[in-house]
């Protein structure tokens, strides 16, 4: 049975009415990119905030709160992903996400 793509992508594309939205491009520099354990960390960090956190790469859009969606993004090392945060604490969410990714998910390289 082929259904519509039932992603964990419960991440809404922000409409124009949202005045502020943080976006940023960031490169994955850790050894394996968004591998399973890095995904866990992404979901953990994103879930701390009330804002919507989205990762966009290769034409796919994933809610950072969905493990499945982040895993399915399949972004490897060297991928430049687009981060979007929107909501009451979007600035803090962006800072935390950038810190996580640029800090190479706390992995020893």
């Amino acid at each position, binding site marked *: 049975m082929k259904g519509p793509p*039932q992603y964990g992508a419960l991440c809404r594309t922000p409409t124009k009415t949202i005045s502020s939205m943080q976006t940023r491009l960031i490169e994955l520099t850790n050894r394996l990119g968004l591998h*399973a354990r890095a*995904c866990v960390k992404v979901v953990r960090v994103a879930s701390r905030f009330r804002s919507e956190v989205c990762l966009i790469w290769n034409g796919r859009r994933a809610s950072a709160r969905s493990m499945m969606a982040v895993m399915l993004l399949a972004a490897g090392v060297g991928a430049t992903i687009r981060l979007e945060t929107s909501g009451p604490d979007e600035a803090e969410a962006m800072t935390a996400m950038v810190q996580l990714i640029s800090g190479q998910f706390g992995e020893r390289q």
Partner: protein
Amino acid sequence: MSFVLHGIGVSNGIAIGRAQLVSHATLEVAHYSITPEQVAGETERFAQALQSVQRELETLHGAMTSGDAPAEFGAFLDVHWMILTDPTLHEIPKRTIAEQLCNAEWALTQQLGVLMEQFETIEDPYFRERKADVVHVVERVLKVLMGKPGPVRPATAEDHTILVAHDLSPADVIQFKNHDFAAFLTDLGGVTSHTAIVARSLNVPAVVATHNARTLIRENEMLIVDGGRNVVIVNPDRSVLTEYRLKQEELELEWQKLRRLRTTPATTLDACKIELMANIELPEDLEQTMENGANGVGLFRTEFLFLNRDGLPSEDEQFEAYRTVAAGMKGQPVTVRTFDLGADKHKEGLDGLSRVAPNPALGLRAVRFCLAEPRLFLTQLRAILRASPYGKVKILLPMLSSVSEIEQALALIAQAKDSLREQKIKFDTGIEVGGMIEIPAAVLSLAAFASRLDFLSIGTNDLIQYTLAVDRADDAVAHLYDALHPAVIKLLALAISTSNKAGVPVAVCGEMAGEARFTRLLLGMGLTNFSMHPAHLLTVKQRVLTSDVGEARGFVERMRRSDEPAKLIALLGKLNA
């Protein structure tokens, strides 16, 4: 419309009932419809299964992070926990239950399929392989779901349920042991495939290799399964149904007659005493063993103890299982065969076992695998030894091909004994150790085996497979599998006569031992110990009671000398007349 499907009957008897289909998913999952009123209950059942797995993971996580387990384990559990709590697995199946009015297992399996398709589109093999984690999590949930009773299916008192599947793994069949299926039908499989062996132990009719039963038969259709005639009649008309119900009663009557032989000693017309033993897979099989008056357990297949589970069974857990059987047989012998893992009993998910061997039947299996994994082997040996004071326990080593394997295995048994002595744990110091004869090489150098072992047991299924180079599970060549092949007859006769000459007890524990048409053939070869499915004990006993070993010996001598299949069939016909 009524139609007939042909397959291979792997267990005699007739069953009449309604079809229950099982899906093609990796884990065979039943699909059935529910009523709108049942949606809430089914959704709740699903939610509870998710919760139960979540707790399971959390407990595991707690146990691991508190101990000295490597951090990798904890991280691995984090991944699974997050997959489990993802809305794609939490919410979408619930919606499917309500929209499609189907059971929770089916809804979840469908969603797994959707996710798998998405993973398949990923180019990077590393990321694509993460689907294994999703499958693992879903299987955990399915196991919980299937362990709980689903909504009651509409059925009238006389309507039995017949399971129709594309294929069933031995693990699946064991799981179905707890259900009351009247018969099994599968598209794949062969007469001696392990699925068939397990189905037979349930003592229900089964027809395998039907090729497309799963696609042609619809849910809840009326079926007649005639295991003895290798046919399945779908939607039979009234007259056929009546005739089959009559036949069913006749069989039942015959069975009742056989049951009177339960306590009769198995002695031939010329006063040879024959031992009839049972092959079992689970401690629960003891009941059937006793009911059919077995003289002991000739083969306790231990590998089934750790199918349907994650990880290895612990020493204590194994000990409990062996002890139950040893004590349950009340002093009658119990022959415990060490793990025969590999080949078609392939256990997935066990580290080190998950690699796909290019030719599993010729690969690292049975005693080879145990010798390569001495820790696993020693754990089992210790458990068997610990159970030995509770009855008459023997150890049986599967698939020996050379003397060096026997010596290595004996050294490990000695090591297990030493470790128990050090801990002052009791065991039977005189425990007998025997070997399976199932490779032609073993038959042709049998004297060396006989001088190192206390007893021998001939596994005819593998002996035939290895002699004829026929994969018994491969539908395309299964018809070439022939117990009456001249080479097989010669090897069997040689193995039995060499053992008898060496004074080493020998048994046959393969399928041939349980087939009444081979009873006289084996008696004529000099066999006095047969081990078979408990369901066949009485039929074989009936044959023993009417046989004359001296007369059979004459026929067998002529059969041994012939290379003509037609002549062998004719001689066997006369022998059985």
